[in-house]
């Protein structure tokens, strides 16, 4: 399938995301610039982690006004698959493509650590390679990852089975200690009502190799590939010859 990975000024995990898709999973990747105005012909668009526009004003608030976001909004409204990771999740919330907001962590500081997230819904485009209740080990690294929403939104997220991942301990229990940022309901990732837009704070692209961060993050990307009818098997040889600046 054809992926698009957007680079906003200040995106930091764009190269890593493209590296995982191209080199580790053998996918085809188009690198998109924030001033591009089209995402035509793509199967999934990724908004990567980082500090778009320096996180000035409010995380994601400026990036959502980038020219490419008009194309992403239209793409999502047409049913196209959109994945927002960390800063990408923040941008999707700012753009109104996902409900709720991400605010300063409960402990106020930036937090970089491995966390456990439990798969709440396996029947989604983004988690179909997991089973319900699976616990994934994926890192977080953010200062503004505390998910909040009003009661009505939260109820509708629950009712619509839109809460995809929650922070838990290694055994899959929701506990205050296992919630790294104070998110409401320990929410780590949600999808929209239609099910084609997914945002999460943990970084699956940093958990795709045993050598660096483990492999649980692959399941997210492999699920998307499976949802698109791909074989979702890891090829041994990269299919792209494009040289990346990343690893």
């Amino acid at each position, binding site marked *: 399938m054809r992926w698009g990975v957007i680079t906003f000024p200040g995106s930091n995990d764009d190269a890593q995301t493209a590296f*995982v898709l191209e080199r580790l999973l053998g996918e085809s990747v188009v690198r998109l610039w924030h001033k591009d105005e089209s995402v035509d012909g793509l199967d999934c668009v990724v908004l990567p982690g980082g500090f778009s526009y320096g996180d000035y004003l409010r995380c994601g608030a400026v990036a959502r006004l980038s020219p490419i976001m008009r194309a992403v909004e239209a793409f999502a409204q047409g049913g196209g698959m959109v994945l927002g990771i960390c800063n990408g999740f923040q941008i999707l919330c700012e753009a109104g493509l996902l409900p709720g907001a991400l605010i300063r962590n409960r402990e106020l500081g930036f937090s*970089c650590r491995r966390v456990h997230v439990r798969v709440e819904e396996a029947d989604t485009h983004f988690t179909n390679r997991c089973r319900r209740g699976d616990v994934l080990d994926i890192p977080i690294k953010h200062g503004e990852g505390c998910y909040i929403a009003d009661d009505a939104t939260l109820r509708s997220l629950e009712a619509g089975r839109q809460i995809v991942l929650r922070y838990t301990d290694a055994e899959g229990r929701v506990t205050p200690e296992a919630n790294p940022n104070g998110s409401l309901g320990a929410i780590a990732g949600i999808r929209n009502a239609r099910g084609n837009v997914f945002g999460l704070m943990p970084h699956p692209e940093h958990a795709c190799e045993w050598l660096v961060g483990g492999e649980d993050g692959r399941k997210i990307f492999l699920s998307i590939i499976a949802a698109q009818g791909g074989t979702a098997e890891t090829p041994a040889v990269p299919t792209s010859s494009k040289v990346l600046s990343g690893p």
Partner: protein
Amino acid sequence: MKITADIALQHGLSAAEYERIESTLGRAPTLEELGVFSVMWSEHCSYKSSRIHLRGLPTTGPRVLQGPGENAGAIDVGDGLAVVFKIESHNHPSFVEPFQGAATGVGGILRDIFTMGARPIANLNSLRFGAIDHPRTGFLVRGVVGGIGHYGNCIGVPTVGGEVSFDPGYDHNILVNAFTLGVVKADRIFRARATGVGNPVMYVGSRTGRDGIHGASLLASAEFDAESESKRPTVQVGDPFTEKLLLEACLELMSPELSHHLVAIQDMGAAGLTSSSTEMASRGGTGLDLDLSLVPLRESGVTPYEILLSESQERMLLVLHQGSEDAVRAIFSKWDLEAAVIGHVTDTKRLRCTFEGKLVVDLPIEPLTDDAPAYDRPAAEPHASDDGKLNLKDLPEPTDYNQTLLRLMESPNLCSREWVYRQYDAYVGGGTVVRPGSDAAVVRLPGTEKAIAMTVDCNSRLCLVDPYVGTVSAVAEAARNLAASGAEPIGVTNCLNFGSPEKPEVMWQFQQAVAGLRDACLAFGTPVISGNVSFYNETEGRSIPPTPVIGMVGLLEDASQHVTQWFKSEGDAIVLLGRNREELGSSEYLAVVHHQVRGGVPWIDLEIERRLIRAVVASAREGLLRSAHDVAEGGLAVALAECCITSETTAPLGARIELEGGFRPDALLFGESHARMIVSVRRRHLTRLREIARREDVPISVIGEVRGKVLEIGDLVGVDVATLRECWRSALTKALAGSAAA
């Protein structure tokens, strides 16, 4: 304005230096010229007190592609790649304004690396604060750590390791040393030599404001006093977002497709436009004509004097080929950055600056750089604070070794640094193999099977007692940390933090440290490829302990052969490589439990260190080592406890240990003798490990087994590892929570 010696003194120059300026020029300088001299002749820029001593350092070797003298040094790591690295201080700014001071320290060292064409892949830092219960320490720690995280996280370079220590000797002068390593194709290293008469000089990046004026001369090159808080305006304000854009734009310009436009590039760091322009002209053997009216400004009314001396961050100076201006402007414009041609290269060997048509600076380059003052300042050995004698008989032995071990594990210098490194993004870039919390950080070399290991080390307590042995020990510890990660040491950078060079005792400490650095680097075959000297680290006449921080870099041919410090599985044999000695001098135990800093320094022998490192690296390459950990501060007992509890992702493991000592148990458990390593191996690999140890003539003894949930050492220690872990892990958070917020 008539320039006089008095005005020169206010600029930090001496009367003799001012006379030298007048005689060089044959006239009084203009105000702008005086400003240029004051920063270029500052200790920070000219190394005037250290230059003659640094010449003796080993700076060459088969792998060295670039030694000292450029923005950073470079070492060949094979596969057509080189690593570029350097460490630099930002001590005074961080004490005056901890958040911005530390942040801009990170920003500055990052620019030094990407100026060479290298993409930064790892940041480390070495931090020294005052006593943990000093009223200002909490404020400084929070600010510095916050600033480092803010800059590194936002620009997207992982912070993967470092060291933090607390000592009352830094109560009034903290140390913030920032290290960055980048990767570049070995044949594509860019240098900062302005050549080609008529070539345009282009200014790129942020606009120039009034911040940081005299940062290099008055802040970095003078000691602190009660008025130092008033120097806060000399601290620059960092913008990591702009630096991220600058990084990407510069690397785009230096890509194979576009780099034919570029002749030279240098960042505007300390002393801003002045030092970047004069240093580029000096290296190129040329001159520069600049029109300061063309410099992009943040506000109107900025004077030429301020433009020359501003240390506004996130700026670079380029020399381009004629006709390349539009192509280069287009790159920076894509990244929404300013780019302006402000002058051109000449053959005059002079720096000439005009402002609104008036000539304000007309100076020969050489007196500003190569012919700047260099002093052989008097040195004299200080009266020792330590008589070297420690009579163990006068030292009561602990009655409860469990309590003593726990007390050490929660002491400020030995407890977990998790509170610190959790605030740093260690993942970004996707190459971090070993994150903070092991002996050294390990980061994959992009596009290869290889990895680079990095560590920054110094035990300033040893350096205070004996700066020569202390520095040798710091180099040895750094090498052991790399070996414990499976890496062969290949190169060194250093940040020499000292008091005022005008004091003979400080100069003596400095000379001793440089001699130690030289001897140790020769012994390990690790050339010194870059470095930084930070003098005047003192307040109201009190100097910091001599603190020569060693940044050492190692190479792993196969990243998957990396080793971490924590035990891996039940049943593995625990092996001590090296020999225990009855030494307690200058130990953490002596300081924490007996409140003494004395007794000389532990004995060290570089040949023995070399053999240990060879044995450990060879064992790692054969895949024998399940874990490896250097025995350092806190001695054998603390090192063993760390092996049990420091894994971030797995539950702590216990160990059953029997030690043969034949001497005092506290010296056996907590003495800090060098040349020791704790490794764990599968039982079936013991024979092979013994063979390697015999080959390298390294003492080897099997001292126990990974087992259960208790750390047992003979009948002296028996502590539940969960208790050890909790006490070690929560201590720093608790200590900082208890310190004042001011």
